């Protein structure tokens, strides 16, 4: 089960509201490569993962992603505090505001609501771990792009932290593949699916 800790993994303290930035960063809350998808992907893949270390990696990274989801939600919340009437009419934010006001809703910046279609649970350890490596790369690029689009230092401190976590997670998933390989047929790792054949 999960127990809530009443603290953020990394502090989010954003002095200036900025609805334009909120309407971009929302993609890491509910977009195709965002933190909601990341946590659901890893925490769901666990169930068919046959090896102890790999159950651990998926559980621990998936849990950390829930903490990142909370951090991204905190960024959106603080960027949209006490908006003035003119700020509400900011280009790019109006379309979000009309449906969600200053609520935090899992959607891509494009307006496409969060979809399980953007995650994969194949039920084959190699396929799932390689999906996870790609997912970390895509999230890393989204954070790169946010850094290109944002000039708010309070926001960027948090984004740089989150981006670096993607790099570390990529490394751990890569090592997870090596651990998986050590359990499989040396000459042909695709001989069978260890999640259902043994």
């Amino acid at each position, binding site marked *: 089960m999960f127990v809530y800790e009443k*603290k953020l993994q990394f*502090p989010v303290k954003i002095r200036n509201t900025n609805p334009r930035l909120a309407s971009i960063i929302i993609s890491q809350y509910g977009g195709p490569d965002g933190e909601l998808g990341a946590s659901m992907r890893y925490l769901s893949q666990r169930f068919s993962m046959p090896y102890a270390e790999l159950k651990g*990696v998926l559980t621990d990274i998936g849990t950390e992603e829930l903490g990142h989801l*909370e951090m991204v939600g905190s960024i959106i919340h603080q960027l949209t505090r006490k908006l003035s009437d003119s700020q509400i009419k900011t280009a790019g934010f109006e379309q979000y505001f009309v449906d969600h006001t200053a609520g935090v809703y899992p959607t891509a910046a494009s307006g496409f609501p969060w979809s399980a279609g953007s995650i994969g649970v194949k039920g084959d350890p190699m396929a799932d771990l390689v999906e996870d490596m790609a997912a970390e790369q895509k999230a890393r690029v989204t954070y790169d792009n946010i850094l290109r689009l944002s000039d708010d230092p309070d926001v960027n401190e948090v984004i740089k*932290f989150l981006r670096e976590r993607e790099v570390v997670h990529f*490394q751990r998933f890569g090592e997870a*593949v090596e651990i998986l390989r050590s359990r499989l047929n040396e000459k042909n790792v695709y001989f069978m699916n260890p999640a259902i054949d043994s």
Partner: protein
Amino acid sequence: MERVSNSAQQNAPATQGCTDAQGKLPSCAPLANPYVPYQSERPDAYNPAKGIVRGTMYPGLDLPFMGMVNQSELSNTLMHQIQSLSFATTELGLYLDTHADDDEALDLFNRYRELYGELMAEYEAKRGPLTMQQAGANGSYDWVNDPWPWEYKANDKEG
């Protein structure tokens, strides 16, 4: 239970000659397989205060975008110390998931975990519960008290 991480690492040649930012790869490897170099045991590590602002405890994995790095450390509040130690244990835990035989990392993990527990207890005695399990320990049910973590003032106060 068999320790797989060790045998996984033994598939690769020794790391002599690798820097801290490099890892092990087999010299001959089966085709149509994905490979990421395996991080060597006993890697250099930042202290928790530096690790949290860099987003990793490991200099070898610290790969920023266009040189954009967080330079200044968090102020030395009790909450920031808790966050730094919590981050350090999370990061070391992930490392240990794939490096279960690295005793040095395990010692460090245990040291930070212990310190984290002490600071959590100090914070909860002074300022209120960080988990629901601790609610009421100070004589009243203060779990729901503001501020909650996503609010500006929770991150602004000198804790």
